[in-house]
């Protein structure tokens, strides 16, 4: 009978009548002495579970204490402060990224220099050097080993009243010249680079923005360097054999000062470097 109806009798586990006893055990209150031995055993067992700390129960105290010292003792510690701390920690390795940033800056300067060289806005000696090394238009007043028309722009420029002087031959809108000479890049034997859109898009804009580049090249304050002095070992042949020959890397141009921004006059989102590479594809 007892087995078929467990809990029917008060004080024995298994029925509704034991609920007050179970609540007392859960709340760790002393149970009546007359309760079932199983309840007493249960209460004793749970008292052991909720008993005082044993060795190992305080594990991690040092770590928690360190965390408290690090975080809670600071005034204003909050999630925002933690985020700020994490952010500052993540910024520490920025020192290691300085060389990368410097390299990027040099590369950007080199690209700008290249673009400026193709735009023909560099001072005369450097423009000449760029002409010899990377096929930029030659400076107008320096005698070029090639005919002057070689350096002419393949695209017609928009002449301005101030755009006169030595730049004018290079900006010749002569259609014959444009037909016979496909620009300095093609003159150096580059395949498929006959028309470089860089010059077509950027030269007029740069000419408009940088009037100094036109007039100042008449009488440059520095002597015109001999090409072989500028870059020893560079072949000055007008017909190099390969596309990579005589082409200095953008970052290796010997420009001792910040060059004008080559992208200043270019359409938004385009740079001469990008267009030059796009034309080769």
């Amino acid at each position, binding site marked *: 009978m007892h087995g078929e109806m467990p809990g029917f009798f008060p004080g024995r*586990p*298994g029925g509704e009548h*034991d*609920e007050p006893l*179970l*609540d007392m*055990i*859960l*709340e*760790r209150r002393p149970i009546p002495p007359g309760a*079932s*031995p*199983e*309840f*007493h*055993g*249960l209460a*004793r*067992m*749970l008292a*052991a*579970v*909720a*008993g*005082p*700390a*044993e060795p*190992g*129960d*305080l*594990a*991690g*105290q040092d*770590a*928690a*204490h360190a*965390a*408290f*010292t690090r*975080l*809670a*003792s*600071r005034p204003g*510690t*909050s*999630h925002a402060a*933690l985020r700020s701390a994490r952010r500052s920690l993540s910024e520490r390795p920025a020192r290691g990224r300085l060389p990368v940033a410097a390299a990027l800056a040099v590369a950007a300067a080199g690209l700008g220099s290249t673009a400026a060289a193709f735009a023909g806005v560099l001072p005369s000696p450097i423009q000449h050097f760029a002409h010899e090394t990377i096929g930029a238009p030659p400076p107008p007043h320096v005698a070029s080993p090639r005919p002057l028309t070689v350096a002419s722009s393949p695209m017609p420029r928009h002449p301005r009243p101030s755009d006169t002087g030595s730049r004018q031959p290079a900006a010749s809108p002569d259609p014959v010249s444009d037909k016979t000479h496909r620009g300095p890049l093609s003159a150096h034997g580059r395949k498929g680079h006959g028309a470089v859109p860089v010059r077509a898009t950027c030269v007029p804009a740069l000419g408009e923005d940088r009037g100094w580049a036109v007039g100042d090249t008449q009488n440059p304050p520095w002597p015109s360097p001999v090409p072989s002095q500028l870059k020893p070992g560079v072949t000055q042949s007008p017909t190099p054999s390969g596309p990579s020959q005589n082409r200095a890397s953008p970052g290796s141009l010997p420009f001792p000062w910040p060059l004008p921004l080559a992208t200043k006059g270019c359409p938004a989102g385009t740079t001469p470097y990008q267009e030059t590479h796009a034309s080769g594809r």
Partner: protein
Amino acid sequence: MIGGAFGVTLANARTGDEAAFACIFRDVQPALLRYLRVITAEPEDVAGETWIQVVTGLRRFRGGEQDFRAWLFAIARNRAADAGRSRHRRPVVPLDMTEAAQHPTTADAADQALEAVSTQAAMELIKSLPREQAEIIMLRVVAGLDAGDVAKIVGKTPGAVRVAAHRGLRRLAGQVAQAGVTL
């Protein structure tokens, strides 16, 4: 339980008093670890994460000792759930889980628990219960939380918590009866 001095202790801990924080830690940590040993295979790690979160939010906490314990154990349960999800993502069976599966869960464990009445043996007996019942019993008995707080933590109604606790206790009492130990 710290009791009446808890408010002052907590206030001191908020101001950076390390002794006050140590007092709170020593009061709660044993119960926290025992609770975590029932519900997770990485109790020490989860306890550490719990305390870091507690320390972080200590200044924003408002309430008494019961509220503090309920808050802390709720954090612990969430961290344990996170640890469980992480463990599922890397399916490696922890050593202590393997050992737990090999523990006897019937009369032998009851005998051992009642003979030695050691905390560890009693906990092994509780771990033999269904997870929900074991967790609720630990929160009620070890953490000292009432049915309402436990209901909030486990996401059930207070009535359901009470029923589950009673079922677990009856099962434990049945094991004690099977052991035939008369105290």
